[in-house]
C-alpha cells in the first residue's frame, strides 16, 4: 500500500488534470456555455454545427495537410539527417549541434523571424530572388504558398527527432552491418535490411510524438499568420482558441477539442495496431 503513497500525486494529477477535464470537456460539449450565464444542455447541437461549419472543415483540412508535411520532416527527413551525422568524420559533432540548435528557439520567435525573412516586400529571400533575376513571391501573404511554406519550415524543428534517431542508430550493433557487408550488399540494401528494421521502434516513437505535436500546432498561426491568408493556415487549435477565448463558445470549443482528442487517439491507436507488422522488436535494450 506504500505504492499508493508514492503514486498519490500522479493519481490525483491523472484524475484532476487529465481524466477529469477530458470528461468535463465531453459534458461541456453537449452544452451552450459562455462562462457568464449558466450552461444549457443542447444535446448534439454542437456536433451538428461542426459538420456544417465551413471553418471547422477548413481547419481539419489545414491540420491534416500540415501533419503530412510535418511527419515528412520530423519522421523521414530527420532520419536522413541523422544518418548523415552518424558517419564518423570531422565536423559531425558541430553538425549535430547546428541541427539541434534551432529547436531550442521558441516557436513564437521563430515564427516572427520567418515572417520577416519571407516578407513579401521587405524580406531577405525576395531580395535575393530579385538579385538573381527570379520573380518575387508572396510567401506567407499568398493563399497558395502560405501553408506549404509553414510546412516546409518545420524542417527547422526536427532537432529532437534527430537526436532520438541518432541515439537509435548508435545502438545498432556493428556486427549486423559487418555480416551483411560481407555478402556484398549495397548501401541501399544495408539500409533496408539492417538500419530500418533495427530502427523501427524508434521510428514508431517519433511517429507518435510527431502526430501528437502536429495536431497541436498553434504558435506559428497565432503569432504570424492569424490563420490567414484566407484561412489557409487556420489550424484546429487556433480555431478552438478563437471559439473558446474570443467568442466564449465554451460548449462548441469543447466539442472541437473532444473531436481533436478522438482523432489523435484514433490515429495513434491505428498506428499502434499496425505497428506489429512493421516494428521489429529484438531482444535488445536501448
Amino acid at each position, binding site marked *: 500500500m506504500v505504492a499508493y503513497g508514492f503514486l498519490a500525486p500522479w493519481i490525483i494529477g491523472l*484524475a484532476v488534470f487529465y*481524466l477529469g477535464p477530458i470528461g468535463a470537456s465531453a459534458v461541456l460539449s453537449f452544452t451552450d456555455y459562455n*462562462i457568464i*450565464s449558466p450552461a444549457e444542455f443542447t444535446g448534439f447541437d454542437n456536433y451538428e454545427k461542426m459538420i456544417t461549419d465551413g471553418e471547422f472543415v477548413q481547419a481539419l483540412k489545414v491540420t491534416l495537410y500540415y501533419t503530412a508535411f510535418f511527419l515528412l520532416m520530423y519522421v523521414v527527413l530527420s532520419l536522413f539527417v541523422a544518418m548523415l551525422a552518424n558517419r564518423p568524420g570531422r565536423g559531425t559533432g558541430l553538425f549535430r549541434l547546428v541541427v539541434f540548435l534551432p529547436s531550442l528557439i521558441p516557436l513564437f520567435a521563430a515564427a516572427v523571424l520567418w515572417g520577416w525573412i519571407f516578407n513579401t516586400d521587405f524580406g531577405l529571400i525576395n531580395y535575393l530572388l530579385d538579385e538573381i533575376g527570379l520573380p518575387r513571391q508572396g510567401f506567407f*501573404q499568398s493563399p497558395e504558398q502560405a501553408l506549404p511554406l509553414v510546412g516546409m519550415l518545420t524542417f527547422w524543428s526536427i532537432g529532437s527527432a534527430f537526436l532520438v534517431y541518432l541515439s537509435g542508430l548508435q545502438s545498432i550493433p556493428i556486427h549486423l552491418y559487418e555480416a551483411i557487408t560481407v555478402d556484398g550488399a549495397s548501401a541501399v540494401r544495408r539500409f533496408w535490411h539492417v538500419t530500418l528494421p533495427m530502427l523501427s521502434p524508434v521510428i514508431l516513437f517519433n511517429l507518435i510524438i510527431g502526430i501528437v505535436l502536429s495536431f497541436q500546432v498553434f504558435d506559428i498561426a497565432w503569432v504570424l499568420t492569424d490563420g490567414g491568408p484566407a484561412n489557409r493556415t487556420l489550424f484546429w487549435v487556433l480555431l478552438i482558441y478563437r471559439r473558446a477565448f*474570443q467568442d466564449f463558445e465554451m460548449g462548441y470549443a469543447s466539442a472541437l477539442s473532444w473531436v481533436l482528442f478522438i482523432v489523435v487517439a484514433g490515429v495513434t491507436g491505428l498506428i499502434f495496431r499496425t505497428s506489429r507488422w512493421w516494428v521489429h522488436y529484438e531482444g535488445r535494450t536501448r
Partner: protein
Amino acid sequence: MRLNKEMEIIRRAKQAGMSRREFIRLGGTAAAAAAFLAACGEDAAPETTAAPATTAAPATTAAPTTTAAPDADEVGGEITLWAWGAGFEGEVIQQRIDYFNSKYPNVQVNWEPLAANGYEEYPNLLARFAAGNAPDVMRMLNFQLTQLTAEGEALLQVDDYIARDAEELNMGDYIPTTVEGAKVDGKMYGLPDNTEPYVIYYNRDAFNDAGLEDPQVLFQNGEWNEEAFTNSIDALIDNGMRFGVSFESWNYDTFCFMGGGTILNENLEPTIHQGASPQMLGYFAQLIADGKSPSPVVAGGTHLEAFRNQQTGMYLMGPWWYGALTGTVDFDYDVTALPSFNGVRAGKLELGTISISSQSKNPEAAWAFTKTITDTRGLEIWSQVATPTRRSALEAAGFNDVQWKKDAVAMVEAGTWTPFTTQGFAVDTACAAALDLLWAGEVTAEEATQDAANRIREALA
C-alpha cells in the same frame, strides 16, 4: 448553484436515455469527471450569493436607490477598478484616481494595472464575473459592452443614474458619436471615456521634396479627397519613395466607411457587398496590385516600421503612434484626416467607455467614480494619452489649437463603426478571410465582398 446546473446537465443526459455505463464510456471516467465538476462547483457555490447576475433581476440593480445624487462625502467604501495602462498611460490613470479622491475622499479605489490591453485580459474578466467577484468599474472597449450585456446582463444599465444626475453630467457636451457608442439596444451601459479615430500619417519632408501640397492644408481647404490622395501617392513614388501609402488589411472596415460604405446594417444583415464598399476595397486592392502599397502584413508591425524607415510616405492608422514616432525618426511628419471619397468623409471610430458591473456591491461609489473621471477635468487629464469625448475637455486640453489634433477630432465627428454583435470576432475573421483573396489579387472586389457577405451570414447564423 453552478454545480447544480452541471448536475442538472448530467441528470438530463441520463433522462435522454443515456445509461450510466454509456455515460462513463463517454466521459472517459465519470468518477473523475464528477469529482472535477464537484471541485468546480464547491468553490463557486458560496460565491453565487454575491453574484446578482444570476440571482437578482437586472432591472432592480439598474435603478439608483436615491432620487438625488448623495453628497460627495456621504459616498464611501471601496471599489475595484479594472483598467489597462502601462507606463505613462498608467500614471495618467492614477492621476484620474487622485482627482476622483479629491472630490470623494471617502472612497478607496483599488486598481491593479493590467499588463497589455483590454483584449488579452478579457477572458480573465469573464472568469471573474463567473466566479462572482467582478470588479466594480471597468474600462471597456465598445464591442465588449454588447458581449457582456447579451451574455448575462453583466453590466449596470446607467440610464436612470444619468437621468438623476442630468444637470451635473451635461450629456450634450459629449461628441454625439461617442454617446451612441456607449449604447446597447438604445440603453446606456457606461459613460464615453475615450475615442480613437483613424487618420493619415504623412512624411512632410517627402511631400515637400515631391512638390506636393501639405495634406493638412488640403484638408482645411476641403481638397483632401480621392484625387489629391491618389496624386500624392504617385508623386511620392515618382520622387523615389518605394511605396506611397501603407495600411493594415484588418482596417478593411475603415476603407469601406471612407467612401460611405458599411459592413453590416442595423438589422445585422451584411452590406459589405453593396454600395460603396466593393468600390473602396477595390481601390485599396489596386494600390497593392500596382505596387503602390506594400502587401498586407501577416506579421504585424512592419508597416509602421516601413513609415519610420521612409519606405512609405503615408500610413493609415489611429493617432496613437504620434508620440511614439517622435524622437525615433529623423524627418518631419504629421497627421491629418482621412481623405474623402465620393464626397463622403468618414472613418472607423474606436470607442472606450467606463462601465459598472451589475455585481458591484457599491454601485453608488462606482457611479460617482465613473461620472467624475469622465467629467471635463477628468477627461482633460485623460487627454494626455487619449482623445477625450467631451467638447469641453477637448477645448480645455487645447485640442483645437493643434492642427493634427483638430483634424483627428474631425474624424471623431465623422466616425462610425460596424454594429456590434456577440459574434463580433467571428464576423471580423470571416471578412478578413474573404478579403485576403482580394489583397492577394486573386479575385475581384465584387467576388470578395460577395464571399464576405456569405461568410458573415454563416457566422451570424
